[in-house]
């Protein structure tokens, strides 16, 4: 009951910020950019389906959403500590554990909403293309889209849990942002593998980031990242075993970060 109330409060705070809606507006442009890519650059490619536009919108939207997730989740903890509103919240008769979990759950709702929003916007140009090619399997396409959504949601929840964990360690939003950006190499890795390399034909050194936890966490996502730019993510036969394993590892990371962050937050002195 208390947790539900706290999640509601976090969502009210989150969706009352102008920045949240600016983020949504920016993400709304993603399908438009993709549509331009599909219709202008690859206009003659007859194999593109409407579901590809949605999936690609999701993938590119996820890259932008990663930035917002880092900013929003750091703002929820370090930002509130810096603004001293966390202090006011914690002088209410609520458990710190629930305050922290409420912030995390609000982030889950935010992530699901952002990706659902980008999917819906992507469906508009998707309809123009025509959702399915005559030889496509509707059920398979639905599974592909649902899995893409699930994978990206999990990936962003991982980012959020990591950033909340970092925000518990430091009251400085700037430090938390930097750590969040640096360690969430999924973002840089994806940009590198999916954007820089294909566009400029460059193969960049990745030795510095292969040791970071998120690189290790998402072998499946990394493997699939290059396919995503062409709207073919998960379109080949789905390796369910690798997918389960990858999601399992992500889940363990999320739980570990949440558990450690909750323990630290419970014992933390609120000085600001």
């Amino acid at each position, binding site marked *: 009951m208390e947790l539900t*109330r*706290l999640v*509601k*409060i976090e969502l*009210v*705070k989150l969706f*009352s*910020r*102008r920045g949240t809606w600016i983020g949504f507006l920016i993400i709304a442009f993603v399908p438009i950019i993709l549509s331009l890519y599909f219709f202008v650059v690859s206009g003659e490619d007859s194999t593109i389906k409407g579901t590809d536009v949605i999936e690609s919108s999701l993938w590119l939207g996820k890259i932008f959403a990663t930035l917002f997730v880092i900013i929003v989740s750091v703002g929820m903890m370090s930002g509130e500590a810096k*603004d*001293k*509103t966390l*202090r*006011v*919240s*914690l*002088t*209410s*008769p*609520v*458990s*710190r554990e629930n305050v922290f979990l409420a912030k995390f759950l609000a982030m889950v709702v935010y992530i699901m909403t952002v990706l659902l929003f980008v999917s819906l916007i992507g469906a508009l140009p998707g309809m123009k293309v025509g959702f399915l090619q005559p030889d496509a399997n509707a059920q398979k396409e639905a599974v592909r889209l649902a899995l893409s959504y699930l994978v990206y949601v999990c990936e962003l929840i991982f980012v959020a849990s990591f950033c909340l964990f970092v925000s518990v360690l430091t009251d400085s939003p700037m430090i938390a942002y930097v750590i969040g950006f640096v360690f969430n190499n999924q973002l840089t890795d994806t940009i590198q593998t999916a954007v820089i390399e294909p566009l400029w034909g460059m193969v960049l050194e990745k030795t510095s980031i292969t040791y970071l936890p998120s690189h290790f966490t998402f072998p499946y996502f990394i493997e699939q990242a290059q396919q995503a730019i062409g709207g073919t993510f998960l379109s080949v036969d789905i390796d369910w075993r690798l997918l389960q394993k990858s999601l399992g590892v992500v889940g363990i990371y999320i739980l570990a970060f949440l558990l450690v962050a909750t323990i630290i937050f419970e*014992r933390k*002195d*609120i*000085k600001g």
Partner: protein
Amino acid sequence: MENVIETESLTKLFGRLVAVDGLSMNVPEGSVFGFLGPNGAGKTTTIRLLTSLLHPNKGKMTVLGKDVVADKSYALEGVGCMVEDPAFYEYLSARKNVELFGEMRGGVKKDEIDNVLSMVGLSERGNDKVKTYSHGMKQRLGIAVAMLSSPTLLILDEPTSGLDPKGMVEVREIIKELAAKKNVTIFLSSHLLHEVSQVCTHVCVINKGRHIVSGRVDELLAEEEETYQVRVSDATKAEKILLEKKMKVVLQKDALRVSVAKGEGAKIASLLVSEHIDVLSLIPQTKTLETFFLEVTEDGTDQTGKD
């Protein structure tokens, strides 16, 4: 319940710095309790400990009978707090802020929000965003949030800081009214001794994290002897005569400070006149909270015996 707050040997360290050093105090139910001390004495650290923002290194504390360390989340039920400068979500209106903080306390009705905003004089500006508020208005809003859900204990840290003189008077009136009509116990930390003497029934003075003295204001200021400032024609001769009569005399720049047993003030004048010394003025010196505070904080030793 006799005491709404009890601390026993409460200690808080920040590295090597001892911010609160074995503090023991009791706050009686229904009192307006002034918590005094010079800058850096450990007042805000103590309030942060009581509101579970900080964790003590040693000692016990109960708030409304609940152990703050063992049950820190729910010890604050029935407690309204304003710790240091109040902070709000600047992008939200004052009303929305009050509503959200009310939700954290289990929810409040619209009438109650109107009521607390009206009490602090923010009814008309309630729908304005907090970022447009002055420091004094935020201070008022902090008091409004602390008063939500009709607390039985109100912990206020420098509540009149940043307020204009009119605002200060209004806040004092609110405090008096809450204590008198609604039987709210108020724990008030303040630098303004004049303010404390106007509203508080009890005080506790701390210095360097240690308890110096506490008790009822009237008892602490009660004097066993009377002190007078005496201006005479010959101060040196007058000092000698008064000392011979076993009176306490301090020769000041151009006057004497004389202490005598209660009701014996008139003897000073008659004695000096009988010795042919002209008494130019004889002014009784009343003990104020300010003089008392300076006296006890300069001494710095625990005067628990005075409790």
